[in-house]
C-alpha cells in the first residue's frame, strides 16, 4: 500500500510524488498535512507515480474545500479530480490535457475535518465517498491507467494521510452482519479478500478472490443470490463458505470469457432459490440436498442447468431456457416439478433425465423439439404436455 502522512515539515513533495505538470503547480508538505506550494488559490496537484491503484484517499484537515483526491492521473495531464469548491456539493471533474474540462457529476456533500475523502474506480465508474459513505458515482472510462494523487486549488486547503488503499493484502472484514449484505459494483482483485465471518440470515462470503476487475453485483441478498454483469475469467474463483438456511455455495467457480462463466455450487444444504433472475451463464449444481427452486429465471445464450444429483426436489416455475439451453439432470431421487417451462429455439435444447426414482410432474411445459428421457420408475403425470 502506498501512503504518505506528509511528516516532513514544509518541503516539496519528493519522488515518487510527481507534479501533474502543465499549468498545475506542485504540492508541499506542511505542518500536519499537504497543501499547494503557492499558498494561494491556484491549480496544483501531484500524483504518486509508483502507484497504479484505482483509489486515492485523503483526510480533510482545513481550509476552503477546492481540492481533493485525484485518480488516473498521468501525462497530459489527464485524469480525474474531486472538489467541493462551493462548500455544499462534491464534484468529480475530468482533467483533459491540463484543463479541468468536464464536469462528470455532483451531489450534495461537504468535507468534514479529520474525515476521509476517497475517489476510487470500479469498472467504468468513479465513486466518491465521504467518511466511508458513497456519495457520488459517475461513469467515465476516458482514462483508466495512471496514478492516484491529490489536487489542492484553494491556497488554504490542507489534507493529510494520503493513501491509495491498495494494500498487498487489503481486506474487508465483517465480523458479524445480522441480516443482509448488499454489494454493488464491487471490484475484487487477487490480493484483496472480502471476508465475512458470519451473516446470520442472508449470506456468508469467505475469502472472495476475483482477479482483474470483474464486477460482483448483488442487488439484494436475503434468500437469493443475484449475480449480474459478472465478468469473470478463467482461474477466478468465488468461494462462498456457508449460508445456513437459504443458500450455501462452496467453491463456486466462475470460468471462461466474459459472458460464458459458470456458477457451480458443489453443495447446497437446503435450498437455492433464484427468482426473477436473468442469468447469462451456466449453472451446475453437483449436489443439492433438498431443493432447487427457480422461478421466473431466464437462462439465455447457450447456457444450461446441470444437476448431477438432486436428492429431493427440483422445482422450476416460469423458467425460460433460450437458445441452445439444456436442462440435464443425471439423477433425482424424489420429485421434479416443472411448471410453465419454456424451451425455445427448435432443435437446440435438451431435457435429459437419466433417472428419476419417484415422480416427474410437468405442467404447461412446452418442448419445441425432442426431449430425451431416461428411466422413470414410478409415476409420470403430464398435464398440457405439448410436444
Amino acid at each position, binding site marked *: 500500500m502506498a501512503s504518505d502522512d506528509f511528516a516532513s515539515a514544509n518541503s516539496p513533495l519528493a519522488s515518487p510524488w510527481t507534479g501533474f505538470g502543465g499549468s498545475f503547480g506542485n504540492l508541499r508538505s506542511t505542518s500536519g498535512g499537504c497543501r499547494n506550494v503557492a499558498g494561494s488559490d491556484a491549480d496544483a496537484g501531484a500524483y504518486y507515480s509508483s502507484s497504479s491503484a484505482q483509489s486515492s484517499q485523503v483526510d480533510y484537515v482545513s481550509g476552503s474545500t*477546492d481540492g481533493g483526491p485525484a485518480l488516473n492521473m498521468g501525462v497530459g495531464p*489527464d485524469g480525474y479530480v474531486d*472538489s467541493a*469548491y*462551493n462548500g455544499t456539493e462534491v464534484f468529480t*471533474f475530468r482533467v483533459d490535457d491540463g*484543463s*479541468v*474540462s*468536464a*464536469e*462528470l*457529476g*455532483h*451531489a*450534495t456533500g461537504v468535507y468534514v475535518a479529520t474525515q476521509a475523502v476517497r475517489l476510487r474506480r*470500479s*469498472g*467504468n*465508474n468513479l*465513486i466518491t465517498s465521504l467518511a466511508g459513505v*458513497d456519495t*457520488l*458515482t*459517475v*461513469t*467515465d*472510462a*476516458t*482514462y*483508466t491507467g495512471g496514478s492516484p494523487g491529490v489536487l489542492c*486549488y484553494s491556497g488554504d486547503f490542507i489534507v493529510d494521510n494520503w493513501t491509495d488503499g491498495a494494500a498487498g493484502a487489503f481486506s474487508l472484514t465483517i465480523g458479524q452482519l445480522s441480516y443482509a449484505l448488499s454489494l*454493488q*459494483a464491487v471490484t475484487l482483485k487477487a490480493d484483496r479478500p472480502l471476508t465475512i465471518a458470519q451473516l446470520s440470515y442472508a449470506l456468508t462470503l469467505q475469502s472472495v478472490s476475483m482477479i482483474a476487475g470483474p*464486477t460482483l*453485483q448483488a*442487488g439484494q441478498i436475503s434468500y437469493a443470490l443475484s449475480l*449480474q*454483469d459478472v*465478468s469473470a475469467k478463467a482461474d477466478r474463483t468465488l468461494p462462498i463458505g456457508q449460508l445456513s438456511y437459504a443458500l450455501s455455495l462452496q467453491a463456486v467457480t466462475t470460468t471462461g470469457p*466474459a*459472458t460464458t462463466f459458470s456458477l457451480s455450487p458443489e453443495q447446497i444444504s437446503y435450498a437455492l432459490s433464484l427468482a426473477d433472475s*436473468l442469468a*447469462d451463464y451456466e449453472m451446475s449444481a453437483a449436489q443439492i440436498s433438498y431443493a432447487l427452486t427457480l422461478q421466473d429465471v431466464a437462462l*439465455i445464450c447457450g447456457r444450461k442447468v446441470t444437476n448431477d444429483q438432486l436428492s429431493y426436489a427440483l422445482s422450476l416455475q416460469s423458467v425460460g431456457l433460450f437458445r441452445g439451453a439444456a436442462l440435464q439432470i443425471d439423477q433425482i431421487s424424489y420429485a421434479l416439478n416443472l411448471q410453465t417451462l419454456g424451451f425455445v429455439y427448435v432443435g437446440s435444447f435438451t431435457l435429459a433425465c437419466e433417472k428419476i426414482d419417484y415422480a416427474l410432474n410437468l405442467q404447461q411445459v412446452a418442448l419445441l423439439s425432442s426431449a430425451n428421457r431416461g428411466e422413470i420408475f414410478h409415476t409420470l403425470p403430464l398435464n398440457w404436455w405439448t410436444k
Partner: protein
Amino acid sequence: MTVRIYLMPTILADNGRHLNMKRAKYRTLLSNSSVIHYGPEPYCMVLSDVDTTQHSAVMANADVRAAPADLDTTIASGAPLNTIVNTLEAASIPAQWVVAGMSFRTFVRRLAGIFIVTQGVSGKKFRLLQAALDDPLNTLSANAHSALLDIATAQQLSTTGITGSTTLRSALTTLCAQFATRPLFYGGVSL
C-alpha cells in the same frame, strides 16, 4: 424523488471556478447529477434523482429528452419511435438500432455504451465523428481506428465482423449492442 435519465446538450460554462468547462446544459436545475459525455460531441446522458418540480423544470426545455421513470416500458411504434430516432440522428448518434418494442432499459444501456466507447476514444485523443456516421472506418486515421478497437477490447466487447469497410454507424451499433444484456451501474444505481 425519482431516478430519471435525460439526454441533453452540453455547454461550455464558467462555473465560477473553472472556465469553459463542459457540463450538462441544465445541470444547475438538478440537485445531483451523473453525466456520461458523448466524447467531444455536445451531448450527454444525465442521471439524476429528481422531484417533480425539478423534472418539470428540466423538461420545459425543448432540447431535452427523458426516458420514462419505468425503464421496462417499451418504445412504441410510430411517433414515439420516430421522435427517438430523429432526436438521436440529429445529434449524430446512430439510431437505426432503436426499434419498437425495445425496452427503455435496453435503450439506455445501449446508448450509454455508445457514449462510453466514444468517450473512451476521445481519451486517446481521437474524435470518432471526424468521420460521418455512414463513412467506413478506414476513412478514420489508422490511429483513430486502432483507438476504437483498443477501447472495445478494454470494455470486453467483441469486434467480430468489424473491418475497415464497416461504417462507423454499424461499428458503434455492433459494439454497443453488447451492452444490452449488461446491467448498467450508473449514478449509484443499477439499470
